[in-house]
């Protein structure tokens, strides 16, 4: 069974789980930039949380169903229509042959997820079928979707489902991310360290799956701002030469040569995928063990609706 891409949207890719345990070979995580929204979309269809789905960025795609099947839409707030009639996010819905699904522009948040029963067939590379755009592997031929692409999947009958209100991930244009200090935080001067945690940062136009640049006061790091390449992960905040903090996201390289001035805690890393240019962002300083307590509380909360939450966050 298939779905045909009529219009691809701004940047739509097939995403699943991240690649884990391969950063020492230079292999980035990839995977859904907002894994919680991917899991929520799949949950509605009885799929495993990481079943490959479409991740759409800022402007969603138009798709034609070539078969009868169930699908769901989650993530950023956007108007979605089936044959021109508005449909709801966070519900399992049924389409029949010839139906056209259009997901419009994101109004709040940055990324929408479109899932089908069974998940899309995708190229499994190095333990995941997520698309790595830079390296060009995984997903559909390692690239973003284009008009005319035909996505295959094996639909199955399901019970209809809705996400309970309390598990609908809130979308916002103001964010607060719990953040710890990192290996090179002490290379910031006192005023810069203060600014890091007190500024209401603005998300720059440069916000994509590689990372998010923050606009605000320029931070000063000691020395020339370069250091021997060292390991980084999604959520690592670097301070490049221009003094603007750069928060790494799922597609970021595995090592970097800029001071690592902070680290977004695991509890809030999933939100990085929903930051869009113009959004405001505060970094909330946490001691590492405080952030772990908060992580475990969040996991406990979500486990009832998403039993695999420990793998998702």
């Amino acid at each position, binding site marked *: 069974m298939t779905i045909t891409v009529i219009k691809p949207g701004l940047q739509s890719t097939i995403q699943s789980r991240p690649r*884990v345990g391969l950063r020492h070979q230079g292999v980035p995580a990839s995977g859904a930039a907002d894994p919680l929204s991917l899991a929520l979309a799949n949950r509605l269809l009885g799929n495993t949380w990481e079943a490959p789905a479409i991740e759409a960025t800022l402007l969603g795609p138009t798709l034609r169903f070539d078969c009868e099947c169930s699908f769901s839409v989650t993530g950023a707030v956007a108007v979605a229509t089936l044959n021109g009639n508005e449909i709801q996010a966070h519900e399992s819905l049924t389409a029949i042959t010839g139906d056209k699904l259009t997901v419009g522009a994101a109004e709040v948040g940055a990324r929408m997820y479109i899932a089908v029963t069974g998940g899309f067939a995708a190229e499994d590379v190095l333990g995941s079928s997520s698309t790595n755009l*830079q390296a060009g592997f995984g997903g559909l031929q390692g690239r973003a979707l284009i008009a005319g692409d035909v996505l295959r999947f094996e639909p199955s009958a399901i019970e209809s489902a809705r996400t309970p209100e309390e598990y609908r991930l809130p979308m916002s244009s103001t964010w607060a991310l719990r953040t710890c200090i990192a*290996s090179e935080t002490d290379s910031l001067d006192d005023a810069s360290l203060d600014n890091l945690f007190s500024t209401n940062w603005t998300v720059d136009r440069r916000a994509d799956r590689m990372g998010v640049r923050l606009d605000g006061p320029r931070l000063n790091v000691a020395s020339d701002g370069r250091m021997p*390449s060292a*390991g*980084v992960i999604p959520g690592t905040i670097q301070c490049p030469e221009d003094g603007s903090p750069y928060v790494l996201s799922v597609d970021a390289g*595995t090592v970097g040569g800029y001071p690592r001035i902070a680290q977004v805690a695991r509890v809030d890393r999933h939100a990085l995928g929903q930051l869009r240019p113009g959004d405001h962002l505060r970094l909330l300083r946490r001691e590492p*063990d405080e952030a*772990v307590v908060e992580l475990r509380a969040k996991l406990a909360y979500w486990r009832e609706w998403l039993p695999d939450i420990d793998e998702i966050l």
Partner: protein
Amino acid sequence: MLTRSGDDLFSVTTESPQDAQALASQMRDSGDWLEVIPGIDSVVLQFDAATYDGDDVRQTIESALAAGIEPLQISQSLVEIPVIYGGEYGPDLNALCEKIGLTADDVIALHTGREYTVDMIGFTPGFAFIGDLDERLRVPRRKEPRQRVEAGSVGIADERTGLYAMASPGGWTIIGRTPSRLFDPNAEQPFVLGAGTRVRFTAISADELNG
């Protein structure tokens, strides 16, 4: 030095890339880690904070450090990497020659004239950091990184050669390109080079590539 560098991260500084690789490999074999990422003079370890407590993880790392790091086995095999130097494949070679006051032949002779070791793989899949360059060839990274550097490109920066296993943005001075495929995601052994691999570059002509 051991530091907690996040809620689920520790970072260890090391004396050398070899120590970083040795420690990383030892930790990977002995523990339950999400990521163990060796750098040039550091190792970053990510643990599952949902399962493990930071204090216990710290103790595990401290005990390993106290017991000492087993030196990394240097690989016996030598990988030969053919390179077309200069021209369209090495667009920065002429500028480099002017900057350091050597001819292209000098640069090629120096670059092919010694054996190297892969210090680390990282940044993009299979990107190899290879040390150490002859002191006469050392230049800093370009101020303006390129948006796209082709797969197989051979760059230099500071004391190392960098091999781009796949196309990516990059800031190294590109002196040539190898036709060897360094990363094949579908192969059983997708990465040709690993940390500790011995490497020698040999000069070939563009005709040899096409013929």
